[in-house]
């Protein structure tokens, strides 16, 4: 286990969120997973040794409970782009979290949020890039 683990808050514990939470937790980081419903948490494996919080992350009280002001990293991976973008901005601008990442499905919203200094990852663009690469490889 690494000595200097990071404090990471993951908002949205679906397939991607749970995967990240399990992996980061098993790598020795302190992870807090937030989800609207408790039913998402079974996605967390036995390796996950972090905390779970059931709540709506668009309410700052929930983020405060997750001690976002002390977090090194916040990752927003709910299925709702707007929740991710809002939570990411609140973490960055109000809780001063050093590293904030948001998943955004809609590539058209990426540019607007790049302007606000929010780092977004768009699964659509990423997958499209991989497909294009795979096509050109075969030629």
């Amino acid at each position, binding site marked *: 286990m690494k000595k200097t683990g990071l404090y990471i808050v993951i908002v949205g514990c679906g397939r991607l969120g749970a995967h990240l939470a399990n992996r980061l937790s098993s790598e020795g980081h302190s992870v807090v997973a937030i989800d609207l419903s408790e039913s998402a948490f079974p996605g967390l494996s036995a390796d996950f040794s972090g905390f779970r919080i059931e709540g709506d992350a*668009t309410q700052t009280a929930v983020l405060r409970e997750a001690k976002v002001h002390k977090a090194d990293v916040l990752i927003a991976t709910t299925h709702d782009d707007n929740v991710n973008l*809002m939570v990411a901005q609140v973490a960055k601008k109000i809780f001063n979290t050093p590293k904030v990442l948001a998943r955004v499905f809609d590539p058209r919203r990426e540019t*607007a949020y790049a302007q606000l200094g929010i780092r977004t990852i768009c699964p659509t663009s990423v997958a499209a890039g991989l497909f294009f690469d795979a096509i050109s490889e075969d030629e």
Partner: protein
Amino acid sequence: MKVILVGGDKTLYFLCRNFTSKGYEVVVINREQKEAVQLSRQLSAVVLCGDGSDPEILAEAGARSADAILAITPNDQDNLIICQLASLQFGVPRCVALANDPDNAEIFEMLGVTAFSTTDIVGSLIEQRASLEQITNLLPISGGKVNVTEIVLDNKSPVIGQSLKDIRLPEGTLIGVLIRDNQPIIPRGATQLLDGDHIVLITLPDSHGPALKALLGDTE
């Protein structure tokens, strides 16, 4: 004036009706197809069915030429993103978001979006009205730093029959307008106050209580 309203429900309906009656050009964006169809039948506004936080829908609603956008959906995250997109991508000059969670009103302001919380506004209205029956309207501005209060003078008021220039009001108080028999009057020093006058009073927090006392007398 061109206004885009995003949301649904009675609030949107009545707001839209109010705006169209003033001659504003209104475009409504509503997510639910059934509700959108119903609104388009009831309102003399263009109604689009779609996600207001989708830049294409905003473009279709004519965001580029809009003077204002009001996001009043039940989801705070949507209201924030709608206003940010409208302002960043379309340069809409006035974007106002409803904060359903009153805590978010402050957060939205910190993120650069004008916000209001109906909970806060209605809460303070009810508090003020419950505490003093002569107050008929109260509007806190910039989070309560300035209050605009409408009061009615009754025969118990110590200022009835006096001219404004003779009434001693505390610092930080302004009588904006008088309403007498439904007619607004911009008051001057010589204007006399009468029983039944409605006064629109502008006060700072410190002068609010003393100003009400000066005009209404001891109501305890």
